[in-house]
Protein backbone atom coordinates (compact mmCIF):
# COMPACT_ATOMS: atom_id res chain seq x y z
CA UNK A 1 0.00 0.00 0.00
CA UNK A 2 1.48 3.33 -1.01
CA UNK A 3 1.01 6.45 1.12
CA UNK A 4 -1.50 9.10 0.10
CA UNK A 5 -0.72 12.77 0.77
CA UNK A 6 -3.92 14.77 0.88
CA UNK A 7 -4.49 18.50 0.46
CA UNK A 8 -6.04 20.20 3.45
CA UNK A 9 -8.19 23.29 3.73
CA UNK A 10 -8.31 23.40 7.52
CA UNK A 11 -5.99 26.42 7.64
CA UNK A 12 -8.65 28.50 5.92
CA UNK A 13 -10.77 28.56 9.07
CA UNK A 14 -8.09 30.52 10.93
CA UNK A 15 -7.87 34.31 10.67
CA UNK A 16 -5.15 35.59 8.29
CA UNK A 17 -1.63 35.78 9.66
CA UNK A 18 0.85 38.61 9.71
CA UNK A 19 4.61 38.90 9.78
CA UNK A 20 4.77 41.76 12.25
CA UNK A 21 8.38 42.63 11.50
CA UNK A 22 7.64 43.14 7.80
CA UNK A 23 4.43 45.01 8.52
CA UNK A 24 6.13 47.32 11.02
CA UNK A 25 8.97 48.11 8.62
CA UNK A 26 6.44 48.89 5.91
CA UNK A 27 4.12 50.97 8.08
CA UNK A 28 6.90 53.03 9.62
CA UNK A 29 8.15 53.82 6.11
CA UNK A 30 4.57 54.66 5.11
CA UNK A 31 4.17 57.14 7.96
CA UNK A 32 7.52 58.79 7.31
CA UNK A 33 6.77 59.08 3.62
CA UNK A 34 3.23 60.37 4.00
CA UNK A 35 3.95 62.88 6.76
CA UNK A 36 7.52 64.07 6.30
CA UNK A 37 8.33 63.49 2.62
CA UNK A 38 4.97 64.24 1.06
CA UNK A 39 3.53 66.81 3.44
CA UNK A 40 6.57 68.17 5.26
CA UNK A 41 4.81 67.55 8.59
CA UNK A 42 6.91 66.05 11.36
CA UNK A 43 4.23 65.60 14.00
CA UNK A 44 1.23 63.34 14.44
CA UNK A 45 -1.81 63.74 16.64
CA UNK A 46 -3.75 60.65 17.68
CA UNK A 47 -6.93 60.12 19.63
CA UNK A 48 -5.75 57.65 22.26
CA UNK A 49 -8.74 55.70 23.56
CA UNK A 50 -7.09 53.09 25.71
CA UNK A 51 -7.86 50.43 23.11
CA UNK A 52 -5.42 48.39 21.11
CA UNK A 53 -5.95 50.08 17.72
CA UNK A 54 -4.96 53.57 18.81
CA UNK A 55 -2.17 52.10 20.94
CA UNK A 56 -0.66 50.31 17.94
CA UNK A 57 -1.00 53.50 15.90
CA UNK A 58 0.79 55.45 18.63
CA UNK A 59 3.61 52.88 18.75
CA UNK A 60 4.03 53.04 14.98
CA UNK A 61 4.00 56.85 14.98
CA UNK A 62 6.54 56.94 17.79
CA UNK A 63 8.85 54.70 15.78
CA UNK A 64 8.35 56.71 12.60
CA UNK A 65 8.53 60.24 14.01
CA UNK A 66 10.06 59.94 17.45
CA UNK A 67 7.90 60.00 20.61
CA UNK A 68 8.50 63.72 21.11
CA UNK A 69 6.62 64.33 17.84
CA UNK A 70 3.56 62.29 18.76
CA UNK A 71 0.64 63.97 20.53
CA UNK A 72 -1.74 61.56 22.21
CA UNK A 73 -5.09 63.15 23.00
CA UNK A 74 -7.42 61.42 25.43
CA UNK A 75 -11.01 62.57 24.97
CA UNK A 76 -13.23 61.01 27.64
CA UNK A 77 -16.95 61.60 28.00
CA UNK A 78 -18.47 61.49 31.46
CA UNK A 79 -19.62 57.90 30.98
CA UNK A 80 -16.26 56.69 29.64
CA UNK A 81 -14.64 53.98 31.69
CA UNK A 82 -11.86 55.15 34.02
CA UNK A 83 -10.00 52.00 32.98
CA UNK A 84 -9.75 53.39 29.44
CA UNK A 85 -7.97 56.48 30.72
CA UNK A 86 -5.65 54.36 32.80
CA UNK A 87 -4.87 52.01 29.90
CA UNK A 88 -4.12 54.97 27.64
CA UNK A 89 -1.78 56.25 30.34
CA UNK A 90 0.19 52.99 30.16
CA UNK A 91 0.85 53.70 26.48
CA UNK A 92 1.79 57.32 27.15
CA UNK A 93 4.21 56.28 29.88
CA UNK A 94 5.71 53.43 27.89
CA UNK A 95 6.35 55.53 24.79
CA UNK A 96 7.09 58.92 26.33
CA UNK A 97 4.81 60.64 23.83
CA UNK A 98 3.28 64.03 24.54
CA UNK A 99 -0.18 63.72 26.01
CA UNK A 100 -3.21 65.75 26.91
CA UNK A 101 -6.66 64.93 28.21
CA UNK A 102 -9.54 66.99 26.85
CA UNK A 103 -12.91 66.09 28.27
CA UNK A 104 -15.66 66.27 25.65
CA UNK A 105 -18.60 66.08 28.07
CA UNK A 106 -19.46 69.78 27.96
CA UNK A 107 -19.28 69.91 24.16
CA UNK A 108 -21.35 66.77 23.69
CA UNK A 109 -23.94 67.68 26.30
CA UNK A 110 -24.09 71.24 24.95
CA UNK A 111 -25.85 69.75 21.96
CA UNK A 112 -27.52 66.69 23.47
CA UNK A 113 -29.36 68.81 26.05
CA UNK A 114 -31.65 69.71 23.15
CA UNK A 115 -32.05 66.03 22.24
CA UNK A 116 -32.82 64.29 25.52
CA UNK A 117 -34.41 61.34 23.74
CA UNK A 118 -31.33 60.50 21.66
CA UNK A 119 -30.64 56.77 21.87
CA UNK A 120 -27.26 55.19 22.48
CA UNK A 121 -26.39 55.03 18.78
CA UNK A 122 -27.04 58.71 18.23
CA UNK A 123 -25.21 59.66 21.40
CA UNK A 124 -22.25 57.55 20.37
CA UNK A 125 -22.13 59.21 16.97
CA UNK A 126 -22.20 62.68 18.54
CA UNK A 127 -19.30 61.69 20.79
CA UNK A 128 -17.28 60.27 17.90
CA UNK A 129 -17.84 63.36 15.77
CA UNK A 130 -17.00 65.65 18.67
CA UNK A 131 -13.72 63.80 19.12
CA UNK A 132 -12.89 64.53 15.50
CA UNK A 133 -13.67 68.22 16.01
CA UNK A 134 -11.15 68.21 18.84
CA UNK A 135 -8.57 66.16 16.96
CA UNK A 136 -8.62 68.38 13.89
CA UNK A 137 -8.47 71.54 15.96
CA UNK A 138 -5.50 70.13 17.86
CA UNK A 139 -3.99 69.31 14.47
CA UNK A 140 -4.21 72.97 13.44
CA UNK A 141 -2.89 74.14 16.78
CA UNK A 142 0.03 71.72 16.96
CA UNK A 143 0.86 71.62 13.24
CA UNK A 144 0.44 67.87 13.53
CA UNK A 145 -1.31 65.50 11.15
CA UNK A 146 -4.25 63.49 12.52
CA UNK A 147 -3.48 59.79 12.11
CA UNK A 148 -6.36 57.36 11.84
CA UNK A 149 -6.80 54.28 13.97
CA UNK A 150 -9.56 52.32 12.23
CA UNK A 151 -8.79 48.68 11.42
CA UNK A 152 -9.90 46.70 8.37
CA UNK A 153 -12.44 44.61 10.26
CA UNK A 154 -14.40 47.54 11.62
CA UNK A 155 -14.18 49.29 8.26
CA UNK A 156 -15.59 46.24 6.50
CA UNK A 157 -18.30 45.63 9.07
CA UNK A 158 -19.22 49.32 9.10
CA UNK A 159 -18.61 49.40 12.83
CA UNK A 160 -17.58 53.05 12.97
CA UNK A 161 -19.11 56.50 12.74
CA UNK A 162 -19.02 57.83 9.19
CA UNK A 163 -16.90 60.96 8.81
CA UNK A 164 -15.70 60.63 12.38
CA UNK A 165 -13.36 57.70 13.06
CA UNK A 166 -12.52 57.52 9.34
CA UNK A 167 -11.61 61.19 8.79
CA UNK A 168 -7.84 61.40 9.44
CA UNK A 169 -6.00 61.75 6.11
CA UNK A 170 -3.64 58.86 6.74
CA UNK A 171 -4.22 55.54 8.46
CA UNK A 172 -1.47 52.98 8.95
CA UNK A 173 -3.64 50.09 10.17
CA UNK A 174 -6.70 50.33 7.92
CA UNK A 175 -5.61 47.32 5.84
CA UNK A 176 -5.04 45.11 8.90
CA UNK A 177 -7.73 42.90 10.36
CA UNK A 178 -8.36 43.20 14.09
CA UNK A 179 -6.67 39.88 14.79
CA UNK A 180 -3.60 41.11 12.88
CA UNK A 181 -3.62 44.32 14.94
CA UNK A 182 -3.52 42.21 18.10
CA UNK A 183 -0.57 40.28 16.72
CA UNK A 184 1.19 43.50 15.75
CA UNK A 185 0.50 44.91 19.22
CA UNK A 186 2.29 41.95 20.81
CA UNK A 187 5.27 42.49 18.54
CA UNK A 188 5.44 46.22 19.24
CA UNK A 189 5.27 45.70 22.99
CA UNK A 190 1.88 47.29 23.64
CA UNK A 191 0.99 46.73 27.33
CA UNK A 192 -0.60 43.30 27.70
CA UNK A 193 -3.73 44.58 29.41
CA UNK A 194 -4.71 46.46 26.25
CA UNK A 195 -4.30 43.31 24.17
CA UNK A 196 -6.15 41.05 26.56
CA UNK A 197 -9.18 43.18 27.30
CA UNK A 198 -12.36 42.87 25.27
CA UNK A 199 -12.47 45.59 22.61
CA UNK A 200 -15.15 48.17 23.29
CA UNK A 201 -16.45 51.40 21.84
CA UNK A 202 -16.79 52.43 25.51
CA UNK A 203 -20.07 54.22 25.00
CA UNK A 204 -21.99 52.25 27.61
CA UNK A 205 -21.06 50.10 30.59
CA UNK A 206 -20.26 46.46 29.74
CA UNK A 207 -20.41 47.18 26.01
CA UNK A 208 -18.09 45.07 23.85
CA UNK A 209 -17.46 45.08 20.10
CA UNK A 210 -18.00 41.36 19.80
CA UNK A 211 -21.27 41.66 21.75
CA UNK A 212 -22.45 44.45 19.44
CA UNK A 213 -21.38 42.60 16.30
CA UNK A 214 -22.68 39.17 17.33
CA UNK A 215 -19.50 37.42 16.26
CA UNK A 216 -15.93 37.14 17.51
CA UNK A 217 -13.20 38.98 15.66
CA UNK A 218 -11.34 35.72 15.02
CA UNK A 219 -14.34 34.21 13.23
CA UNK A 220 -15.23 37.43 11.43
CA UNK A 221 -11.68 37.96 10.18
CA UNK A 222 -11.38 34.42 8.86
CA UNK A 223 -14.64 34.83 6.95
CA UNK A 224 -13.79 38.34 5.72
CA UNK A 225 -10.40 37.26 4.40
CA UNK A 226 -12.09 34.63 2.19
CA UNK A 227 -15.11 36.72 1.32
CA UNK A 228 -12.91 39.50 -0.05
CA UNK A 229 -11.27 37.02 -2.40
CA UNK A 230 -14.63 36.51 -4.04
CA UNK A 231 -15.91 33.27 -2.52
CA UNK A 232 -19.68 32.93 -2.36
CA UNK A 233 -21.55 32.25 0.87
CA UNK A 234 -22.12 28.68 -0.25
CA UNK A 235 -18.43 28.14 -0.92
CA UNK A 236 -17.56 29.59 2.48
CA UNK A 237 -20.00 27.23 4.19
CA UNK A 238 -18.55 24.32 2.21
CA UNK A 239 -15.15 25.29 3.48
CA UNK A 240 -16.40 24.82 7.02
CA UNK A 241 -17.61 28.24 8.17
CA UNK A 242 -20.81 28.53 10.16
CA UNK A 243 -23.75 29.52 7.94
CA UNK A 244 -25.12 32.00 10.49
CA UNK A 245 -21.71 33.69 10.81
CA UNK A 246 -21.29 33.91 7.05
CA UNK A 247 -24.72 35.49 6.63
CA UNK A 248 -24.06 37.95 9.43
CA UNK A 249 -20.72 39.06 8.01
CA UNK A 250 -22.05 39.28 4.45
CA UNK A 251 -25.02 41.38 5.56
CA UNK A 252 -22.84 43.80 7.49
CA UNK A 253 -20.36 44.22 4.62
CA UNK A 254 -23.05 44.75 2.00
CA UNK A 255 -25.22 47.08 4.09
CA UNK A 256 -22.29 49.36 5.01
CA UNK A 257 -20.65 49.54 1.61
CA UNK A 258 -21.55 53.22 1.30
CA UNK A 259 -19.59 54.08 4.46
CA UNK A 260 -16.36 53.22 2.70
CA UNK A 261 -16.91 55.84 0.01
CA UNK A 262 -16.98 59.59 -0.32
CA UNK A 263 -20.43 61.20 -0.63
CA UNK A 264 -22.32 60.43 -3.82
CA UNK A 265 -22.31 63.50 -6.04
CA UNK A 266 -24.74 63.97 -8.92
CA UNK A 267 -22.83 63.98 -12.19
CA UNK A 268 -23.88 66.63 -14.69
CA UNK A 269 -20.79 67.30 -16.84
CA UNK A 270 -17.93 65.44 -18.45
CA UNK A 271 -15.52 67.06 -16.02
CA UNK A 272 -17.13 65.65 -12.86
CA UNK A 273 -14.58 65.36 -10.08
CA UNK A 274 -13.41 61.78 -9.46
CA UNK A 275 -15.54 60.58 -12.37
CA UNK A 276 -13.86 62.29 -15.33
CA UNK A 277 -11.38 64.58 -13.61
CA UNK A 278 -9.13 61.93 -12.13
CA UNK A 279 -5.97 62.78 -10.24
CA UNK A 280 -4.19 60.66 -7.62
CA UNK A 281 -4.31 61.94 -4.06
CA UNK A 282 -0.59 62.73 -4.01
CA UNK A 283 -0.62 64.71 -7.27
Amino acid at each position, binding site marked *: MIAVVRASHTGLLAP*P*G*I*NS*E*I*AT*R*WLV*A*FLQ*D*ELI*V*RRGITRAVIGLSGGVDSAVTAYLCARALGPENVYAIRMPYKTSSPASLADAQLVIDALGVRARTIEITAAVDGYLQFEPDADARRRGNVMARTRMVVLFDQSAKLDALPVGTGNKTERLLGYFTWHADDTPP*VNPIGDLFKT*QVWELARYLGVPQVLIDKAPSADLEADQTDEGDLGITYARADAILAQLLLGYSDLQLIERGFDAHDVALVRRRVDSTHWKRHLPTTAMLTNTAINE*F*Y*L*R*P*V*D*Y
Partner: protein
Amino acid sequence: MAARTNGVPSNFDVRLVQVKPSKGRYAENLAQAGNIFEQIVAEKTPDLIVFPEGAMTGYFLEGAVYDLARSAPVFAGDLVRAWREGAGDREVELASGFYENDDGTYYNSALYVRVGRKDHEILHVHRKMFLPTYGVFDEARFLSRGRRLQTFETRIGRVAMLICEDVWHAIMPTIAAIKGARVLIVPSAAPGRGIEGESELTSITRWREILRTTASEHGVYVLYAGLTGFEGGKGMTGSSSIIDPRGVVTVEAPEFGECVVSGTIDLREADLARATLPLLGDLNAVLPDLLLDEELPLPKGRPS
Protein backbone atom coordinates in the same frame (compact mmCIF):
# COMPACT_ATOMS: atom_id res chain seq x y z
CA MET B 1 41.58 45.45 -21.88
CA ALA B 2 37.93 44.45 -21.82
CA ALA B 3 37.13 40.79 -22.15
CA ARG B 4 35.87 39.91 -25.58
CA THR B 5 33.48 37.51 -27.22
CA ASN B 6 34.05 36.99 -30.93
CA GLY B 7 36.22 40.07 -30.99
CA VAL B 8 33.76 42.46 -29.31
CA PRO B 9 33.79 43.58 -25.68
CA SER B 10 31.72 41.44 -23.33
CA ASN B 11 32.20 43.15 -19.99
CA PHE B 12 30.06 46.14 -19.12
CA ASP B 13 29.42 48.42 -16.18
CA VAL B 14 25.78 49.06 -15.45
CA ARG B 15 23.97 51.20 -12.91
CA LEU B 16 20.34 50.93 -11.87
CA VAL B 17 18.89 54.09 -10.37
CA GLN B 18 16.23 53.35 -7.76
CA VAL B 19 14.29 56.56 -7.23
CA LYS B 20 11.21 57.97 -5.58
CA PRO B 21 10.14 60.75 -7.94
CA SER B 22 8.15 63.72 -6.66
CA LYS B 23 4.70 63.05 -8.05
CA GLY B 24 4.11 65.00 -11.23
CA ARG B 25 7.21 67.20 -10.91
CA TYR B 26 8.87 66.29 -14.17
CA ALA B 27 11.49 69.07 -14.26
CA GLU B 28 12.40 68.58 -10.61
CA ASN B 29 12.88 64.85 -11.11
CA LEU B 30 15.03 65.39 -14.19
CA ALA B 31 17.19 67.81 -12.22
CA GLN B 32 17.55 65.17 -9.53
CA ALA B 33 18.57 62.69 -12.23
CA GLY B 34 21.27 65.17 -13.23
CA ASN B 35 22.55 65.18 -9.66
CA ILE B 36 22.59 61.38 -9.64
CA PHE B 37 24.50 61.35 -12.95
CA GLU B 38 27.09 63.67 -11.43
CA GLN B 39 27.47 61.33 -8.46
CA ILE B 40 27.78 58.27 -10.69
CA VAL B 41 30.46 59.65 -13.01
CA ALA B 42 32.47 60.98 -10.08
CA GLU B 43 33.28 57.33 -9.43
CA LYS B 44 33.29 55.93 -12.95
CA THR B 45 31.31 56.42 -16.13
CA PRO B 46 29.36 53.22 -16.72
CA ASP B 47 28.24 51.79 -20.04
CA LEU B 48 24.55 51.86 -19.20
CA ILE B 49 22.29 53.54 -16.64
CA VAL B 50 18.72 52.28 -16.17
CA PHE B 51 15.83 54.10 -14.49
CA PRO B 52 12.48 52.55 -13.42
CA GLU B 53 9.01 52.86 -14.89
CA GLY B 54 7.54 56.35 -14.48
CA ALA B 55 10.90 57.51 -13.14
CA MET B 56 10.43 61.21 -13.86
CA THR B 57 6.76 61.52 -12.92
CA GLY B 58 5.70 58.80 -10.51
CA TYR B 59 3.68 55.78 -11.56
CA PHE B 60 0.06 56.34 -10.48
CA LEU B 61 -0.94 59.42 -12.49
CA GLU B 62 -4.53 58.73 -13.54
CA GLY B 63 -5.67 61.64 -15.76
CA ALA B 64 -2.50 63.61 -15.04
CA VAL B 65 -0.74 61.34 -17.51
CA TYR B 66 -2.02 63.64 -20.23
CA ASP B 67 -0.22 66.60 -18.61
CA LEU B 68 3.01 64.73 -18.07
CA ALA B 69 3.49 62.54 -21.14
CA ARG B 70 6.18 63.61 -23.61
CA SER B 71 7.07 62.52 -27.11
CA ALA B 72 10.05 60.18 -27.25
CA PRO B 73 12.32 62.78 -28.91
CA VAL B 74 11.40 65.39 -26.29
CA PHE B 75 11.94 62.98 -23.41
CA ALA B 76 15.23 61.83 -24.89
CA GLY B 77 16.33 65.46 -25.21
CA ASP B 78 15.35 66.19 -21.61
CA LEU B 79 17.10 63.10 -20.28
CA VAL B 80 20.25 63.80 -22.28
CA ARG B 81 20.23 67.41 -21.07
CA ALA B 82 20.15 66.12 -17.49
CA TRP B 83 23.06 63.85 -18.37
CA ARG B 84 25.07 66.75 -19.81
CA GLU B 85 24.43 68.81 -16.70
CA GLY B 86 25.72 66.07 -14.45
CA ALA B 87 28.30 64.37 -16.65
CA GLY B 88 29.36 66.83 -19.34
CA ASP B 89 30.30 65.35 -22.70
CA ARG B 90 30.91 61.81 -21.52
CA GLU B 91 29.46 58.99 -23.59
CA VAL B 92 26.89 56.61 -22.10
CA GLU B 93 23.71 54.76 -22.86
CA LEU B 94 20.56 55.52 -20.86
CA ALA B 95 17.30 53.62 -20.44
CA SER B 96 14.28 54.99 -18.61
CA GLY B 97 10.59 54.52 -18.26
CA PHE B 98 8.41 57.49 -19.24
CA TYR B 99 4.86 58.28 -20.23
CA GLU B 100 4.78 58.83 -23.99
CA ASN B 101 2.56 61.16 -25.97
CA ASP B 102 2.66 60.05 -29.59
CA ASP B 103 0.53 62.67 -31.33
CA GLY B 104 -2.27 62.23 -28.84
CA THR B 105 -1.96 58.51 -28.28
CA TYR B 106 -0.53 57.77 -24.87
CA TYR B 107 1.71 54.90 -23.85
CA ASN B 108 3.61 53.63 -20.85
CA SER B 109 6.99 53.43 -22.56
CA ALA B 110 10.69 52.83 -22.03
CA LEU B 111 13.30 54.75 -23.95
CA TYR B 112 16.82 53.62 -24.77
CA VAL B 113 19.16 56.36 -25.93
CA ARG B 114 22.83 56.33 -26.94
CA VAL B 115 24.54 59.50 -25.76
CA GLY B 116 27.61 60.58 -27.74
CA ARG B 117 30.01 63.36 -26.98
CA LYS B 118 27.97 65.89 -28.92
CA ASP B 119 24.92 64.04 -30.12
CA HIS B 120 22.45 61.40 -29.09
CA GLU B 121 20.39 58.77 -30.83
CA ILE B 122 17.24 56.96 -29.74
CA LEU B 123 17.98 53.28 -30.23
CA HIS B 124 14.55 52.07 -29.22
CA VAL B 125 11.22 52.90 -27.61
CA HIS B 126 9.31 49.99 -26.16
CA ARG B 127 5.63 50.56 -25.46
CA LYS B 128 4.27 48.44 -22.63
CA MET B 129 2.12 45.70 -24.10
CA PHE B 130 0.48 44.31 -20.98
CA LEU B 131 -1.28 47.16 -19.21
CA PRO B 132 -2.39 46.01 -15.76
CA THR B 133 -6.01 47.05 -15.29
CA TYR B 134 -7.25 45.17 -12.26
CA GLY B 135 -7.31 45.76 -8.52
CA VAL B 136 -5.10 48.73 -7.72
CA PHE B 137 -4.07 49.14 -11.38
CA ASP B 138 -5.91 51.18 -13.99
CA GLU B 139 -3.50 51.63 -16.88
CA ALA B 140 -5.74 50.71 -19.82
CA ARG B 141 -8.21 53.36 -18.75
CA PHE B 142 -5.66 56.04 -19.59
CA LEU B 143 -3.16 54.43 -21.95
CA SER B 144 -2.94 52.49 -25.18
CA ARG B 145 -0.97 49.28 -25.38
CA GLY B 146 2.14 48.73 -27.40
CA ARG B 147 1.90 46.41 -30.39
CA ARG B 148 5.42 45.07 -30.90
CA LEU B 149 8.17 43.45 -28.89
CA GLN B 150 11.47 44.25 -30.54
CA THR B 151 15.10 43.66 -29.72
CA PHE B 152 17.81 46.12 -30.69
CA GLU B 153 21.57 46.45 -30.80
CA THR B 154 23.33 48.50 -28.14
CA ARG B 155 26.80 48.92 -26.75
CA ILE B 156 26.10 45.98 -24.44
CA GLY B 157 24.77 43.71 -27.16
CA ARG B 158 21.26 42.84 -28.24
CA VAL B 159 18.71 44.05 -25.72
CA ALA B 160 14.96 43.93 -25.14
CA MET B 161 13.00 46.12 -22.75
CA LEU B 162 9.99 44.72 -20.91
CA ILE B 163 8.01 47.01 -18.63
CA CYS B 164 6.66 45.59 -15.38
CA GLU B 165 3.73 43.24 -16.23
CA ASP B 166 5.30 42.58 -19.63
CA VAL B 167 7.78 40.28 -17.92
CA TRP B 168 5.12 38.42 -15.91
CA HIS B 169 3.95 36.76 -19.14
CA ALA B 170 6.50 34.06 -19.86
CA ILE B 171 5.97 34.39 -23.58
CA MET B 172 7.43 37.92 -23.59
CA PRO B 173 10.98 37.15 -22.40
CA THR B 174 10.75 33.95 -24.42
CA ILE B 175 10.16 35.87 -27.64
CA ALA B 176 12.75 38.48 -26.69
CA ALA B 177 15.34 35.73 -26.21
CA ILE B 178 14.37 34.01 -29.46
CA LYS B 179 14.81 37.35 -31.19
CA GLY B 180 18.36 37.49 -29.90
CA ALA B 181 18.23 39.45 -26.67
CA ARG B 182 20.95 38.58 -24.20
CA VAL B 183 20.04 41.37 -21.81
CA LEU B 184 16.51 42.15 -20.63
CA ILE B 185 15.96 45.60 -19.18
CA VAL B 186 12.92 45.69 -16.89
CA PRO B 187 11.83 49.14 -15.68
CA SER B 188 9.15 48.61 -13.06
CA ALA B 189 6.83 50.16 -10.50
CA ALA B 190 5.64 47.40 -8.18
CA PRO B 191 3.25 48.32 -5.35
CA GLY B 192 4.09 45.99 -2.48
CA ARG B 193 1.61 43.70 -0.76
CA GLY B 194 1.40 40.46 1.19
CA ILE B 195 2.40 40.49 4.87
CA GLU B 196 2.46 36.76 5.53
CA GLY B 197 5.91 36.12 4.07
CA GLU B 198 9.08 34.96 5.82
CA SER B 199 11.21 38.08 5.64
CA GLU B 200 9.73 40.37 3.02
CA LEU B 201 6.46 41.23 1.34
CA THR B 202 5.27 38.26 -0.68
CA SER B 203 5.05 40.42 -3.81
CA ILE B 204 8.81 41.04 -3.61
CA THR B 205 9.46 37.30 -3.39
CA ARG B 206 7.15 36.68 -6.33
CA TRP B 207 8.94 39.25 -8.46
CA ARG B 208 12.35 37.75 -7.68
CA GLU B 209 11.12 34.27 -8.56
CA ILE B 210 9.86 35.49 -11.93
CA LEU B 211 13.03 37.39 -12.75
CA ARG B 212 15.32 34.52 -11.73
CA THR B 213 13.27 32.01 -13.69
CA THR B 214 13.30 34.31 -16.71
CA ALA B 215 17.08 34.78 -16.56
CA SER B 216 17.92 31.11 -16.10
CA GLU B 217 15.39 29.74 -18.57
CA HIS B 218 16.75 31.79 -21.44
CA GLY B 219 20.32 32.45 -20.36
CA VAL B 220 19.90 36.21 -20.28
CA TYR B 221 20.90 38.98 -17.93
CA VAL B 222 17.99 40.76 -16.28
CA LEU B 223 18.42 44.37 -15.21
CA TYR B 224 15.48 45.21 -12.98
CA ALA B 225 15.02 48.86 -11.97
CA GLY B 226 12.20 49.44 -9.50
CA LEU B 227 10.61 52.60 -8.14
CA THR B 228 10.69 53.05 -4.39
CA GLY B 229 8.68 55.14 -1.91
CA PHE B 230 4.96 55.53 -1.36
CA GLU B 231 2.37 56.87 -3.76
CA GLY B 232 -0.89 57.52 -1.98
CA GLY B 233 -0.40 54.70 0.52
CA LYS B 234 0.89 52.26 -2.07
CA GLY B 235 4.53 51.50 -1.39
CA MET B 236 6.79 50.70 -4.33
CA THR B 237 9.08 47.80 -3.57
CA GLY B 238 12.40 48.98 -5.02
CA SER B 239 14.58 45.85 -4.95
CA SER B 240 16.40 46.90 -8.12
CA SER B 241 18.62 44.02 -9.09
CA ILE B 242 20.98 42.42 -11.56
CA ILE B 243 20.35 38.75 -12.22
CA ASP B 244 22.88 36.74 -14.16
CA PRO B 245 22.08 34.21 -16.91
CA ARG B 246 22.13 31.35 -14.41
CA GLY B 247 19.45 33.04 -12.35
CA VAL B 248 21.74 34.24 -9.59
CA VAL B 249 20.96 37.63 -8.08
CA THR B 250 24.36 39.32 -8.17
CA VAL B 251 23.19 42.51 -6.48
CA GLU B 252 19.86 43.71 -5.11
CA ALA B 253 18.84 47.01 -3.56
CA PRO B 254 16.66 47.18 -0.45
CA GLU B 255 12.95 47.77 -0.82
CA PHE B 256 13.10 51.30 0.57
CA GLY B 257 15.38 54.17 -0.15
CA GLU B 258 16.77 55.82 -3.22
CA CYS B 259 20.04 54.30 -4.34
CA VAL B 260 22.28 53.49 -7.28
CA VAL B 261 22.82 49.78 -7.86
CA SER B 262 26.24 49.18 -9.30
CA GLY B 263 27.34 46.02 -11.06
CA THR B 264 28.85 44.47 -14.13
CA ILE B 265 27.56 42.08 -16.73
CA ASP B 266 29.71 39.72 -18.74
CA LEU B 267 28.07 38.37 -21.86
CA ARG B 268 30.37 35.34 -21.83
CA GLU B 269 28.27 34.25 -18.84
CA ALA B 270 25.26 34.10 -21.11
CA ASP B 271 27.15 31.87 -23.54
CA LEU B 272 28.28 29.58 -20.75
CA ALA B 273 24.85 29.43 -19.16
CA ARG B 274 23.30 28.52 -22.50
CA ALA B 275 25.94 25.85 -23.07
CA THR B 276 25.19 24.32 -19.67
CA LEU B 277 21.43 24.55 -19.98
CA PRO B 278 20.57 24.79 -23.69
CA LEU B 279 16.88 25.50 -23.22
CA LEU B 280 16.85 28.35 -25.70
CA GLY B 281 18.44 26.22 -28.41
CA ASP B 282 15.90 23.48 -27.70
CA LEU B 283 13.08 25.99 -27.91
CA ASN B 284 14.27 27.28 -31.28
CA ALA B 285 14.00 23.76 -32.62
CA VAL B 286 10.53 23.09 -31.21
CA LEU B 287 9.00 26.53 -31.68
CA PRO B 288 7.60 25.94 -35.19
CA ASP B 289 5.63 22.93 -34.00
CA LEU B 290 4.26 24.91 -31.08
CA LEU B 291 3.26 27.98 -33.06
CA LEU B 292 1.85 26.13 -36.07
CA ASP B 293 -0.61 24.34 -33.81
CA GLU B 294 -4.01 25.10 -35.27
CA GLU B 295 -5.65 24.99 -31.85
CA LEU B 296 -3.80 28.17 -30.82
CA PRO B 297 -5.89 31.35 -31.07
CA LEU B 298 -3.54 32.91 -33.61
CA PRO B 299 -4.60 34.92 -36.67
CA LYS B 300 -4.33 33.02 -39.94
CA GLY B 301 -1.97 34.96 -42.12
CA ARG B 302 -0.41 38.30 -41.37
CA PRO B 303 -2.60 41.28 -40.44
CA SER B 304 -2.74 43.75 -43.31
